[in-house]
């Protein structure tokens, strides 16, 4: 018995296997198996008697003969008796054959490939001439032909990209011309665009990755192309059949109980280029190169509805996540904000409005699009509560703040904070519904850009225009929280730094990133531990790791909920709790513990130190410093230097006298991370006689 594989698909937790015993001409067979463990799903085989017989064309090779839509499964079969090519459509939930459509009859006229869209339309490549597939037909869910294209010389593969709503075919001489890959219209099958992709002619198989890129196969070669047919990579190897490529495109579900079907598009703006990425690698964005300002230190983006809009000071651009492409942001009414050739540098989305500010030639002004329409900037339209509005427009009584706008901080549907150069203002309510600007502080402003973050409890943290960090309630009540390190923050020239903050929900605290605009400058970032109300300086050994852009990404997968850092070198990184180094660089950690001394400032002899570190801790260095008072001890050369190991280390014999002591822990070895459990010093307090002379 010879059984031929005709294709396999996965959907809703079920693996469908389509095969045929063509030698015995006993019919096509469809099996169902649980994707989880391979056990049969219901009766096995699932369908046989109701399916046509398969008798493969004698010499024609083929791709898959099965495709699955939303509710229907499409199967291509050849009836051995009459050699008809039949499209059989089955209702997925019942296995009932809902239609059987004869596409063509005649010897050696088979189906080369089949694809389905999300509306149960099926696209079939088949041979009108014996052994030469050259036709593409669309059939609806009832098996009725919607259109048929006959202009192509040869066709082999068809792929429907449900994520990006594209239908692609491959073969040779598309429309009889010189191209071999095409995107065609689902409405009528006409060619939308096509190209002669280098490497092979004809291309025998096509599939996609759900990320806007496609794979083409031919004998001994596979290439990856973008939607504009540019090649990403080429793989050649002797023996590739060229047929039956399959890619993980995210369209075939295994988890029927899945509740979220979000499509995430992560992108970075790199010196003006918009480039997509995910955990796996770069994703080319159509028309993404040289879209935005290449010289702006930072660019800001904000999604409003379908599109993501940008503020870079020099252009008006938007990103379409559905087509993964950049385009021009044009006004459908009125004009996008601009003054003397300068465009906004700040952007946010609030109440369905796209809010912009930060125009160099109009620094006090703010601009808001019409509600839910970022293309409508008509301030002169018939007055309504949802119309576009700006601070200098008379149809609103809100007016402009008296200070230069440095940041936009949307808090809730009712509150938008304006961070200003040396003040903070709060806009209560929509400007076209009586909203008013209230001054929250006339002494504290906000650093430029997005120097803020929010905790889950509604608290706002921001780097002020003077350097210190504040926590602010929605009512505008300010609390200065950085007194412990104000001495360090006061000395920062904010004009030379990009200030960003980000809340880390797992670690329950806020990062304060202070990245110099000079790539070669060293800097110190800070971590605010909200649980201990404490501050911790952070330094990256590689200055290229200093982030100019941060983004708190909350993907569906646990491993995707990360704080992303965009750095000078074009990489996107994140903090990983188990990582023991900074992307190949050592984490140079240190902490000075002390001063410690017995009560009463009595002289003592530090006899030994006993340390317990976590059992999975790597070694950590230590040094002990002793002096006659704290400041002297802090500056003193180490009285003892050593290393603590994981678990309980041997007691470290010291025997040095003084009034005050410090212990420093340090590590600069790449790949080492440490965690302390306890430290204990054994000291001998000097007796009365000794105290007098010591």
């Amino acid at each position, binding site marked *: 018995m010879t059984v031929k594989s005709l294709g396999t698909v996965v959907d809703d937790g079920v693996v469908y296997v389509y095969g045929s015993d063509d030698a015995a001409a006993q019919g096509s067979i469809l099996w169902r198996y649980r994707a989880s463990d391979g056990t049969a799903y219901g009766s096995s085989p699932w369908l046989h008697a109701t399916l046509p017989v398969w008798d493969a064309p004698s010499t024609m090779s083929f791709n898959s003969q099965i495709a699955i839509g939303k509710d229907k499964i499409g199967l291509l079969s050849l009836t051995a008796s009459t050699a008809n090519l039949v499209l059989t459509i089955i209702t997925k939930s019942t296995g009932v054959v809902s239609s059987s459509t004869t596409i063509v009859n005649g010897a050696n006229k088979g189906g080369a490939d089949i694809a389905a869209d999300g509306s149960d339309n099926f696209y079939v490549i088949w041979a009108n001439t014996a052994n030469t597939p050259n036709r593409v037909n669309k059939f609806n869910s009832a098996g009725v032909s919607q259109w048929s294209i006959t202009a192509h010389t040869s066709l082999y593969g068809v792929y429907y990209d449900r994520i990006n709503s594209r239908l692609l075919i491959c073969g040779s001489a598309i429309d009889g011309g010189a191209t071999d890959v095409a995107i065609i219209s689902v409405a009528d099958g006409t060619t939308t665009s096509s190209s002669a992709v280098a490497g092979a002619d004809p291309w025998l198989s096509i599939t996609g990755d759900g990320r806007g890129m496609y794979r083409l196969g031919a004998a001994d070669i596979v290439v990856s192309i973008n939607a504009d047919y540019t090649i990403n990579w080429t793989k050649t190897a002797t023996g590739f059949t060229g047929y039956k490529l399959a890619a993980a495109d995210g369209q075939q579900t295994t988890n029927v109980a899945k509740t979220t079907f979000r499509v995430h598009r992560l992108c*970075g703006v790199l010196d003006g280029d918009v480039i997509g990425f995910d955990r796996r690698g770069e994703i080319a964005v159509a028309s993404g190169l040289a879209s935005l300002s290449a010289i702006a230190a930072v660019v800001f983006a904000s999604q409003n509805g379908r599109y993501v809009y940008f503020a870079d000071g020099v252009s008006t651009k938007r990103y379409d996540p559905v087509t993964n492409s950049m385009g021009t942001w044009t006004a459908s009414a009125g004009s996008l904000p601009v003054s003397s050739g300068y465009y906004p540098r700040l952007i946010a989305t609030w109440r369905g409005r796209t809010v912009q500010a930060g125009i160099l030639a109009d620094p006090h002004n703010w601009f808001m699009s019409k509600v839910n329409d970022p293309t409508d900037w008509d301030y002169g339209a018939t007055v309504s509560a949802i119309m576009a509005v700006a601070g200098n427009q008379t149809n609103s009584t809100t007016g402009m703040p008296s200070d230069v706008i440095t940041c936009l901080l949307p808090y809730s549907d009712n509150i938008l904070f304006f961070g200003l150069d040396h003040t903070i203002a709060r806009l209560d309510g929509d400007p076209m519904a009586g909203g008013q600007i209230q001054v929250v502080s006339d002494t504290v402003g906000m650093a430029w850009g997005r120097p803020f973050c929010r905790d889950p409890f509604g608290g706002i943290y921001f780097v002020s225009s003077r350097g210190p960090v504040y926590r602010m309630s929605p009512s505008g009540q300010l609390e200065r929280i950085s007194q412990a390190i104000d001495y360090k923050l006061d000395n920062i020239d904010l004009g030379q730094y990009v200030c960003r903050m980000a809340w880390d929900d797992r670690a329950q605290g806020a990062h304060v990133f202070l990245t110099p605009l000079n790539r070669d400058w060293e800097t110190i970032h800070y971590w605010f531990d909200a649980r201990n109300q404490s501050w911790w300086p952070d330094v990256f050994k590689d200055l290229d790791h200093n982030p100019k852009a941060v983004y708190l990404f909350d993907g569906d*997968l646990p491993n995707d909920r990360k704080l992303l850092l965009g750095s000078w070198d074009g990489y996107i990184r994140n903090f990983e709790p188990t990582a023991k180094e900074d992307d190949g660089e050592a984490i140079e950690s240190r902490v000075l513990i002390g001063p410690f001394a017995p009560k009463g400032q009595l002289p003592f002899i530090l006899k030994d130190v006993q340390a317990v570190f976590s059992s999975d801790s790597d070694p950590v260095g230590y040094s002990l410093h002793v002096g006659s008072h704290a400041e002297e001890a802090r500056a003193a050369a180490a009285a003892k230097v050593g290393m603590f190991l994981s678990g309980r280390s041997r007691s470290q014999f010291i025997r040095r006298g003084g009034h005050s002591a410090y212990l420093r822990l340090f590590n600069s070895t790449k790949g080492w991370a440490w965690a302390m459990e306890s430290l204990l010093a054994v000291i001998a307090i000097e007796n009365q006689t000794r105290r007098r002379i010591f």
Partner: protein
Amino acid sequence: MQNADQPIPFPIKGVFVSGPISQQPPGTTTDAQNVRAFDPRTDRNRGASRAGLERFCPDQLAAKSVQEIFHAVQVYGNASATGQGDIFVPLASTFSSYDVSGDPIYEGHPSSPSPSHGTFDQDGNLYTTHAGQNGLEVKKFAGFDPAMLLAGDGFLGQGRGLPNVPGPGQAIANFAANAIANDPRVVDIANLDEGNLNAAASHTITNVSVKSNEILVVAVARHSGFDLGHTLLFAGEAMIETERQDNGDFRTSLWSLKPAADLSGALVLSNTHVSGSVAAIAFKIIQLASSASDVTADDSGSSTTPNSTGAGATTVAKEVVVGVVGTRGPSTDDAGTWGASLLAHQRAGTEGGVATSNVTVATAYRIVYQTGTYTASKSGITSRDWCAICTTFK
């Protein structure tokens, strides 16, 4: 004089630099860097070094600075995360798979003969159909986290037995235990590039774990010294020099150790001779049948085409062929291309100073399923003195 215990608690209240030094508030410190009160690995409030950075995206998006990161969400179809973009490529008698960037996951997988169909699910699992000995077979290859994929790591697979089916469709047969799940794989440990390892100095790779059914392998290129014997210790146990090849005072050697029991500890490369450049690559081979070396060969020369010459015929069908090429030159030399169907693995070397004062070592491997004579060779390297080794493990 009376003894007293003086606890030294970690300063969980962080940095405080605004008061007198002698009156530092309890629980604070005047100096800290890259530490946390809450241990990032366990979330215990005890004091620890901070979490490190890793690459969220393995690719450098561009050699440019990142001005902004943004995220757009659409409720639009089904999106895959794990393994998205992986591709299945049938060959006449096997198949290959590649990741989204075109990097091989597994080239030339030893599947059943006959072209097959494949499909992926949303979680990155691959299902393939094959015309097997007993009829049509279906296999499932478990998905993987690409972030965890090790260079040269094999495609983790597991077969799924499908029951006999009655009647005319009696075609899908029980699928015998799939060898793929038990295929040997190479797992990286660390590389070393030491410009000048002084006499009596050592280099330590910590936290190495090797199970009793695994084999630890270290490839070493060494300049200016012949006495590397017994200088590779793993958890205090001496590794065995499985093969060596000298070229003047330049040596390339392959060391291995199969521990009698599961063993963890430090891998220490010590120098007992004069100073000289050294480079090494440490990895382990897991899921071997016997965890022992089988046949080996070596050769040396000076050219762009190092070649170990063929080792003797292997004695077991399924083995791992390890190729090592050491060159007397810097790591910036042309790496060349591995021949004999070897899959490039790691490359480590020194650089700086006179070119020939440096050493570089490169490794490659291939999982074979038939007995035969195998070699290790490269072409297109910068013309240097070289030593080449081919050793198989069964």
